[in-house]
C-alpha cells in the first residue's frame, strides 16, 4: 500500500508542474502588458516601469517562473490588484463558505443518489426504477443556475421559508446545497443503478440467493460492497464537478465564497487573484482524485498490484 502511495505521489509531480507552468503563463497570455495592468489604466510610463521591476516582470521567463513557484510554495500568490491585500488572505476569507457548501452538497447528493440508484436497480424496469431514472435524467438536464433561481423564487420569495442570499446560518445553506447537489445526485443515481444491475446478475449473488438469504441481505451485504467500487471513483470525479459548479451557484445566491471571488476577479482583470484561485481549485481537484484512487485501492486490493 505504501509503495502504491509513493508511486501515485511521484506520478503527480509532472501534472503539478505543467499545471503550475500553465497558471504562471496565464499572466503572459493575457492581452496587453501585465505591468500596465497591475499599475492601473492611468499610470505614467515611469510608474509602469517601476511596477514591472517590482513584480520582476523584466527578468527572463525561467527566472520569473522560479520566483512564482517559490512564492506559491510559501503560500505567497502576490497581492490583489483591486484591494491590494495579499491574495492568500483574500482566498482564506472565502475558503470555508465554499468548502462547507461543497461538503453539504456532496453529503446529501451522494446519499440520495445511491439510495435512488439502489432502489432503481432492485426494482429494475418497474415503477420505482422509472420514477428514479426520470428524476435522474431531469436532474442532469436542469441547469444549476435556473434551478437555483426557481428554488429561491418558490421557497424564499413566495413561501418565505428560507433566506435568499448570504451565508450566515445553516438555513442559508439549504437552497444553495440543494441546487449544487442536484446534478450530482442524478449522476450518482444513474451510475449506482448501472453498477448494481451488473452486480446483481453475478454468480455469487445467485449463490447467496440460493442459500436462502433474504433479498435485503443479498442486496445490502453482498451487492452493495461490490457495487460501491466504481461508485467511489465516480464520487471523486463529481467532487471536482461540484467545485466548478459552486462558481455558478455562488453567483446565483450571492455566496461569499471562492467562486464569486473568481468571477469578480475575472470581471476586474485582477489576475493575481485569478491565478491563485485557479491553482487552488486544480490542486484541490488533483488531491481529491488522489484520495479517491487510494480509497479505491483500499476497497479493491487487486488495483495495488498492477
Amino acid at each position, binding site marked *: 500500500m505504501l509503495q502504491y502511495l509513493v508511486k501515485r505521489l511521484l506520478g503527480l509531480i509532472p501534472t503539478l508542474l505543467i499545471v503550475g507552468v500553465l497558471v504562471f503563463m496565464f499572466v503572459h497570455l493575457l492581452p496587453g502588458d501585465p505591468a500596465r495592468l497591475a499599475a492601473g489604466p492611468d499610470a505614467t510610463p515611469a510608474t509602469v516601469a517601476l511596477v514591472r521591476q517590482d513584480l520582476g516582470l523584466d527578468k527572463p521567463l525561467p527566472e520569473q517562473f522560479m520566483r512564482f513557484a517559490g512564492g506559491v510554495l510559501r503560500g505567497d500568490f502576490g497581492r490583489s490588484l483591486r484591494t491590494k491585500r495579499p491574495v492568500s488572505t483574500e482566498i482564506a476569507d472565502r475558503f470555508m463558505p465554499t468548502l462547507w457548501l461543497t461538503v453539504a452538497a456532496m453529503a446529501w447528493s451522494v446519499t440520495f443518489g445511491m439510495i435512488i440508484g439502489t432502489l432503481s436497480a432492485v426494482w429494475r424496469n418497474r415503477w420505482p426504477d422509472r420514477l428514479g431514472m426520470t428524476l435522474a435524467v431531469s436532474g442532469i438536464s436542469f*441547469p444549476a443556475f435556473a434551478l437555483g433561481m426557481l428554488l429561491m423564487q418558490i421557497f424564499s420569495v413566495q413561501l418565505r421559508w428560507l433566506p435568499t442570499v448570504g451565508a450566515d446560518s445553516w438555513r442559508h445553506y439549504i437552497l444553495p446545497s440543494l441546487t449544487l447537489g442536484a446534478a450530482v445526485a442524478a449522476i450518482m443515481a444513474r451510475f449506482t443503478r448501472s453498477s448494481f444491475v451488473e452486480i446483481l446478475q453475478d454468480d455469487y449473488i445467485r449463490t447467496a440467493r440460493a442459500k436462502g438469504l433474504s433479498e435485503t441481505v443479498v442486496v445490502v451485504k453482498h451487492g452493495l460492497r461490490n457495487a460501491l467500487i466504481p461508485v467511489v471513483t465516480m464520487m471523486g470525479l463529481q467532487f471536482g464537478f461540484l467545485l466548478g459548479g459552486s462558481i455558478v451557484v455562488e453567483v446565483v445566491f450571492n455566496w461569499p465564497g471562492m467562486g464569486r471571488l473568481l468571477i469578480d476577479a475575472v470581471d476586474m482583470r485582477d489576475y493575481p487573484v485569478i491565478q491563485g484561485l485557479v491553482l487552488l481549485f*486544480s490542486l484541490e481537484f488533483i488531491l481529491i482524485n488522489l484520495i479517491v484512487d487510494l480509497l479505491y485501492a483500499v476497497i479493491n486490493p487487486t488495483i495495488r498490484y498492477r
Partner: protein
Amino acid sequence: MTAATAAMVPTAAVRTPWSEFWRKFKRQHVAVIAGVFVLLLVALAILAPWIVPYDAENFFDYDSLNATPSWKHWFGVDPLGRDILSRLLMGARISLTAGFVSVAVGAVVGTVLGLVAGYREGWWDRIIMRLCDVLFAFPGILLAIGIVAILGGGMVNVIIAVAIFSIPTFARLVRGNTLSLKHLTYVEAARSVGASDWTIVLRHIFPGTIAAVVVYFSLRIGTSIITAASLSFIGLGAQPPTPEWGAMLNEARSDMMTSPHVAIFPSLAIFFTVLAFNLLGDGLRDALDPKIDRR
C-alpha cells in the same frame, strides 16, 4: 439479377451494422421521441429568422411591458417590451450552434489524438495522455472561465473554451477503444498483408471507435449547452441584448419578484433541449452497446 434471386434472400437475414442499430434504436420509444424533438428544434432554429413573430432584439412593445403569456405574445413580454418567444427562437440558434460546434471540434481533435495515442503508444501516448491529465486537472467550467479570461468574453470564445475542455474526454475514450481494437485478429490480419499504418487506423480501427464517439457526442452536447449558458449567465459569454438563453436568464434575475415568467421560459428551453440530447444519448448508447440486448 432477377426478381427471383432477390426474393431468395430473406430480408430479415441481412444484418448490416446500420440495420442492427436501427432495429434496436427504434425500440427505444423515449429516445426516438427525443430524436424527433431535436430535429424539430434544429429546424426551428434554422428557420427562426423567418418565423419569429417579432424582431428579437429591436422590437419593443411598450404597451405590454412584463405582460404574461397571451395570444399576441405566446410566452409573454420581458420588462423591456421584447417578445419572449421570438427571443427564445433566436436564442435556439445560438445555443444549438454553441453546443454542436464546440463538441464537434472537441470530438474531432480528441478522436485524432486518441487514435494517435492508442495506436503509436510510447512517447506519443505519454505526452498526449499527460496533456489530457492536465486538462482534467481543472474542473470543467473553471477551465472555460480561465480561457475566457485570457481570450475575453463573447460567444465565440465560449465555444473555443468548451471545445478545449471536451477534447480530453474524447481522447481518452478513443484511445481506450484503439488499444483494445488494435490487437484484434482482423487488425493483425490487415497488418500481415502489408496494409500501411494509415490504412489500418482509418479503415480498420477508426470505424470501431465511432459508436462510442457518437454516444458521447450526444451526451456532451447537453453538457456543453449548459456550460455555454452558464458562462453567459455569469456574464462571461453572450452579452445583452443577445437573446442567448443563459444571458436572458441573467437579465431576468433582477425582475424575478415581479415577473417570474421572464425567467421560466428560458429555463424550460434549456431544460427541454438538454433533456432531449441526454435521452437521445442514452438511447444511442443502449442501441450501440453490444453488451445490452440479446434477450
